[in-house]
């Protein structure tokens, strides 16, 4: 019993430590990769390969003046950046990193992730509202509408996986992928989920809530110091979470030959994080109405079609 509790505590703190460090490290990784794809060096001065740049950035963001605008709604302004970090870290609780290495084995694991990601919207919307600045408000409005719309078919795109696996439990879903990863029978679901994941983490090309060329810095225009840092870390945590989920749901989770499970999980997750960064480096930002009509007129019918076909095939083959 005591051993059990200690083992759980090790996993909990391990997951916290690793995810937060990965999120911080991604700042460096993103800048280096962007530089690589744009034929320049990127941060390469601090430490070997510029690796200590992360540390320098942290020192900078922690020692900056933490300014709350006098016109802001103070309690909401302070709580908003915390919401996104808390909800995303909580969602990591249901992800099976390797057999036995997960925090809770919840039978509604997938729904738990959807619940947490839907609560994350508040961070951006309230951050934008409480700043009492027009750019922030516009960013917050865009974020609320965008995340609400893309959440609809984010959930729908995953239901094909649930039907094939017959469970909301993420460990069961990984085990159901022995032999054939779901990225092949659920290719449409994978594409829809990936695009919805980009919109949920509001990354380029769907970073309309920030859109620095039109809205200064969007919803976090008025934030400074570590409060801005929280939004930043929350964004990278979101990328890591969506990548880890894509791996879990569509690419067989920890499964793979020769190497230990946790290594396979890490390799696959970093592949998708790289893909997120490549998208940022290569795609332009759409107009806001294009984003919305693309979501409702293309992605939603695709997700429904995927659901219909998957259901029909399961019914016909009688699995």
């Amino acid at each position: 019993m005591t051993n059990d509790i200690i083992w759980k505590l090790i996993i909990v703190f391990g997951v916290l430590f690793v995810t937060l460090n990965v999120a911080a490290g991604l700042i460096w990784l993103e800048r280096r990769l962007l530089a690589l794809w744009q034929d320049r060096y990127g941060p390469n001065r601090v430490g070997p390969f510029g690796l200590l740049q992360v540390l320098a950035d942290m020192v900078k963001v922690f020692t900056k003046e933490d300014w709350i605008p006098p016109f802001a709604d103070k309690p909401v302004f302070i709580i908003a950046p915390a919401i996104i970090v808390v909800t995303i870290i909580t969602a990591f609780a249901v992800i099976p990193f390797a057999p036995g290495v997960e925090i809770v084995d919840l039978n509604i694991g997938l729904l738990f992730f959807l619940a947490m990601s839907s609560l994350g919207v508040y961070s951006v919307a309230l951050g934008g509202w409480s700043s009492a600045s027009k750019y922030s408000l516009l960013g917050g409005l865009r974020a609320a509408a965008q995340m609400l719309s893309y959440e609809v078919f984010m959930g729908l795109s995953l239901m094909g996986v649930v039907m094939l696996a017959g469970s909301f439990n993420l460990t069961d879903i990984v085990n159901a992928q022995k032999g054939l990863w779901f990225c092949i029978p659920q290719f449409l679901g994978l594409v829809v989920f990936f695009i919805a994941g980009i919109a949920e983490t509001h990354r380029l090309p769907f970073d309309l809530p920030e859109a620095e060329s039109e809205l200064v810095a969007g919803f976090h225009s008025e934030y400074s110091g570590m409060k801005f840092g929280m939004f930043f870390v929350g964004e990278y945590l979101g990328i890591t979470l969506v990548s880890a989920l894509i791996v879990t749901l569509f690419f067989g989770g920890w499964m793979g030959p020769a190497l230990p499970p946790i290594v396979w999980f890490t390799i696959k997750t970093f592949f998708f994080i790289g893909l997120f960064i490549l998208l940022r480096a290569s795609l332009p930002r759409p107009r806001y109405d294009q984003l919305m009509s693309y979501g409702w007129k293309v992605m939603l019918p695709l997700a429904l079609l995927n659901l219909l076909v998957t259901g029909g095939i399961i019914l016909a083959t009688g699995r």
Partner: protein
Amino acid sequence: MNTPFYIAAAVAVISTFMVITRRNAVHALLYLIVSLLSVALIFFLLGAPFVAALEIIIYAGAIMVLFVFVIMMLNLGPQSTEMERRWLTPEIWVGPTILTALLAAELLYVLVRVQVRPSDINVITPKQVGIALLGPYVLGVELASLLLLAGLVGAFHLGRREKSDGGGRA
């Protein structure tokens, strides 16, 4: 088992009380979200994890976001808080207080007279919920979907772009 339930219940009651006493609309909404989250926790503790997840996804995560969205658009300033202050006079509380006191008395009576023993909690899985919804309760599901369709058609009608205004795109 009981302690988490009472904590969640207390949070639900206190936050719901805060919802009706706040003068700032967004603060009231935030307390409402907390209240919904604690109710979801209660569902979870009572062995209904599926309902708990749906409560968070649909109520706290979608409907409340729409509320926040609308209030953000309305741009309520200090004037509206001042208006709320004038509206929330002590005499307004009299009626609701009497009614809720009656309900509270009835609740106390039921708690004292009827022996409530903690029932065996069996966890309802999502599969059982699905079988129940599309089995005996399929009529309810169909009626709800009809209602939603009517709402959708209504929203489409209201949001339709007028064709006659010349300059606008159809």
